[in-house]
């Protein structure tokens, strides 16, 4: 289980306008594995995930302390190249957020902004990544159609293709299946299992069953605190912290309306 560390979080604390969202989180995300970040809603999971690509910078009044090292490079240092960092990290949102363009252009967008302008190669790459996301067969005849016309499950796979197209090393998923029907969710999960051969995957989820199915490594975040982390099998079978134990056995009041398994 000892894998190379891809992302290393050191004493990370985050505040939103003085309100603490994450407290002293230290965590290593292993390379080419699926790491699941679990915990009840509003506990800081998404904040942790979005600090990996510094997307939390967009939030109002955000303050960060501590360090995050990606490939041993401090991405929290002033002057860190954010566009390069974000190119390294594909992000899937809770609800797929397609760009207001055609299916083709959604995938081509990232390629274009990172310098690919050759029409022939664009076409090849768009097909390649749509295939990788398992969407090609469904959209090959209507690449020029607006992406917004796709079903929500297809949109999420389009977002996956779009993210893969910028050739990231890490795939971040912020509850990427929570808006999808079970069948679409399963297809996304299958993609993740295939993609972990080549990518480091970090998945925020509050569906414990999903975390069990997919994760090699798991981290439990509760009220801004990293309570426990370790190999997923171990964390689920023998949680060390009573809070973890309570959460994975479905005894947290905060987790109402979710799927505590």
């Amino acid at each position, binding site marked *: 289980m000892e894998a190379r560390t891809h992302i290393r979080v050191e004493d990370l604390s985050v505040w939103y306008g003085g309100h603490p969202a994450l407290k002293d989180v230290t965590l290593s995300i292993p390379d080419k594995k699926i790491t699941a970040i679990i915990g009840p809603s509003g506990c800081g999971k998404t904040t942790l995930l979005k600090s990996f*690509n510094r*997307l939390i910078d*967009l939030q*109002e*009044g955000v303050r960060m302390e501590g360090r995050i090292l990606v490939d041993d490079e401090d991405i929290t240092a002033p002057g860190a190249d*954010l*566009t*390069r960092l*974000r*190119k390294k*990290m*594909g*992000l899937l*949102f809770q*609800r797929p*957020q397609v*760009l*207001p*363009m*055609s299916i083709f*252009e959604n995938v081509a*967008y*990232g390629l274009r*902004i*990172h310098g690919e302008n050759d029409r022939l190669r664009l076409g090849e790459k768009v097909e390649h990544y749509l295939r990788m996301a398992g969407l090609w067969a469904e959209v090959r005849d209507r690449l020029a159609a*607006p*992406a*917004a016309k796709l079903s929500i499950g297809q949109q999420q796979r389009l*977002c996956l293709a*779009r*993210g893969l197209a*910028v050739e990231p090393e890490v795939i971040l998923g912020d509850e990427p299946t929570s808006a999808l029907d079970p069948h679409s969710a399963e297809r996304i999960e299958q993609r993740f299992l295939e993609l972990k051969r080549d990518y480091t995957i970090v998945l925020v989820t509050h569906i414990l069953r999903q975390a069990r199915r997919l994760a090699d490594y798991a981290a439990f975040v509760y009220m801004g605190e990293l309570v426990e982390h370790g190999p997923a099998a171990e964390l689920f079978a023998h949680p060390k912290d009573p809070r973890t134990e309570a959460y994975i056995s479905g005894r947290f009041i905060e987790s109402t309306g979710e799927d505590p398994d």
Partner: protein
Amino acid sequence: MTQARFIEEKIFRGLMLAAAGMVAGSLGLILATVFVKGFRALSFDMLFKTPQGGYYIGGGGGIANAIAGSLVLGLGATLLALLVSLPLVFYLNVYLRRRSRLAFFIRFSLDVLWGIPSIVYGAFGFTVMVTLGLKASLLAGTLTVGLLIIPIMARSMDEVFKMVPPELHEAAYALGSTRWEAAMKVILRQAFPGLAAAVLIAFGRGIGDAASVLFTASFTDALPTSLFRPVATLPLAIFFQLGTPFPEVQERGYAAALVLTLIVLAVSVLARALTRRVTRHSR
């Protein structure tokens, strides 16, 4: 109890219907009035000839001077306002933090400017002209109307930008876009129909305003040929013609009002058609 709730529901439904009816009704009534009173005076001469001698006491000719003048001035002012509004709203919504003090101040200023009556813009424009030694001209009128419609355009655009979901910004950034790329290639596209509507609202307001051009653009019977000459506009043409005691001239005033209304109508229909083509990719 249920009876009371039922009546409550009925009253509110009635109120809403009345309000809706009032809006549709006044539009219909205005169009009908202008049409009925002005249609008969509408003619080839009216549209394509400039006023001949004695036009305002019933002489021949038309209002081509005002139609051309209004179009040129309205388009110029809209373009000018667009050049200021678009960068401004991008700055407000993409670069500035939403709750920044500067953003608050800019929005506040725009709201105040929006509320200032157009005659004040006219007076302001006139004062500036006098200080600079300029005469009433197409240029001065365009600048003044431009100023008048900047807050309208900018604030409407601002509202449109606020409706763009924050996740779309995030999605663009997550792909490694720079702010410029996110703004120009993603946000602009998403916001386009709303932005076009904002431009239209501003154009409609600009082309129809009389008070701001009264001193600054003045009036002339000639077609617009130079930025530095006075220019005729439709609102003033309507005003002057309706102000005469001659029924046939007043009728032409209504015809001019009809033309102005049709221009605004045509532009909005055209723009709707255009935005539909550009935005078939957003929902």
